[in-house]
């Protein structure tokens, strides 16, 4: 077998034979350029498929088909709860990123650098007070919306057959959100934070077999201190944001694929 370079198709010669407008020739030249390097042709099938899907006409929903809006209209405001929790999550993410510029996850100091930084945010930082308030309330509202969303899903039977996976995913998400809230609750390193952390350690230690291991992993030991604070911080600003955001995307993606479950 020869390793000699074979002749390529003369795409540019082909372009010259055609009578193209400037826009067309720029487009085709770019396309050929990119395709020679990135093999766009391999992905054409995906694009093509998307094109035909987009151009499919919208089917009627069950409600539309049987004209049930007049019967079940009172459910529909509750269908926005999932969207609201996502929105509150985004608000919390943005305000949290801003707070992260000023917060110091350090238990050392008098009384502690973490506490002092929160105090600085609330008393000296321009808009810091508002920022913390928005972050906290966005988190609270997200949790409230998530719980109500869960109730709506329960009472409209939306967790049933093709959607069990998303129900399980929702349980994982609500648990992780509570961990999110818990880790954030510990960060100010005030009395409430410290003793909530103490309960967490005791809960972990009460668990048989994995208890001590879990306490060391999550709280960095059996007594609270710098190790606990930094672990809560990393969980809150690094681990959970990635995990929870990815799971939310998956959760919504599954809803998108499966369609909204309406009451019959």
């Amino acid at each position, binding site marked *: 077998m020869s390793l000699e370079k074979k002749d390529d198709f003369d795409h540019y010669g082909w372009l010259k034979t055609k009578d193209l407008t400037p826009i067309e020739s720029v487009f085709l030249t770019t396309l050929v350029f990119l395709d020679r390097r990135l093999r766009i042709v391999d992905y054409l099938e995906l694009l093509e498929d998307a094109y035909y899907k987009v151009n499919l006409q919208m089917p009627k929903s069950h409600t539309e088909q*049987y004209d049930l809006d007049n019967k079940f209209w009172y459910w529909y405001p509750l269908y926005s709860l999932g969207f609201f929790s996502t929105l509150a999550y985004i608000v919390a993410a943005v305000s949290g990123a801003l707070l992260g510029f000023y917060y110091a996850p350090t238990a050392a100091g008098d009384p502690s650098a973490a506490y002092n930084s929160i105090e600085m945010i609330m008393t000296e930082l321009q808009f810091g007070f508002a920022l913390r308030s928005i972050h906290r309330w966005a988190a609270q509202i997200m949790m409230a919306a998530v719980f109500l969303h869960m109730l709506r899903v329960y009472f409209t039977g939306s967790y049933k057959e093709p959607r069990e996976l998303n129900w399980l995913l929702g349980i994982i998400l609500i648990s992780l959100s509570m961990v999110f809230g818990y880790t954030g609750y510990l960060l100010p390193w*005030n009395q409430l934070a410290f003793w909530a952390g103490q309960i967490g350690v005791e809960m972990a230690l009460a668990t048989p077999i994995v208890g001590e291991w879990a306490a060391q992993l999550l709280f960095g030991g059996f007594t609270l201190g710098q190790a606990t604070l930094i672990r809560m911080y990393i969980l809150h600003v690094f681990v959970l944001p990635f995990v929870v955001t990815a799971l939310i995307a998956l959760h919504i993606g599954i809803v998108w694929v499966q369609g909204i479950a309406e009451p019959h």
Partner: protein
Amino acid sequence: MSENETTDDARTDGGETGIVAPDDEVPTWSERKERKAGLSRLTYEYFERSRREDQDLRNESDYVERDVLGFPTWPHEIIRNLSISMFFVGMIVLIAAALPPSLEAPADPSSTPEIILPDWYLYWSFGLLKLNPLNPGLAVLDGGKLLSDQLYGVLANVVVVGAVALLPYLNKGSARRPVEQPFWASIGVGGAVFSITIAALAVQNLIPLPLPLQLNIVFVFPVVAGIITYAVLKTMREGYMYGLNRRYYMLRPPK
């Protein structure tokens, strides 16, 4: 749809679906790319089959095509969503401005505060941790407990979350509305009420009731709420809602 159909008014099956079969120009999977061998070949053969199956089902179905496009995403849907979103974010900012958070005293390991509480959404879990009065002492163990009080509380959490996770496997079927399944609706209401009463147990030291009475309330209120729900929904079955459209479950839903 049968041939002897009369007028649109008489139709109770909801009429047309809006499914539009792909036209001749849509290439088949095999036309898009020929696969010669191996797993990819099998995959494409399978896709081909399932597409054909869908098409057959569509052809067989009673639904009729319609040629009306859906609600436009832009501008209608986008503007509606934007206005809802902006209102909602505005509400968050408003509440945040009206009710700012406080910063308590700094952490002090040497003084245990009187009230230890997590955020409100963890009260139910915290309340489950305080179920230790129900942890039975066993006569065999001289009144000793099989599980430590803390483990008992942790297990209570596991049981509750596990029960919620098992839900789709316990309650199957196509019923969607609470009226159709009064039992499961009353379980739901009972659960929701339990999450509140058990949360009250978390703050038991703030509630001026004796502990035994409060423990009774924790478990009796949800049961009462469930029974009331059941009765109400059973009564509602007499109304027009119940028989509304059960027969449509037989039909294949639109794709």
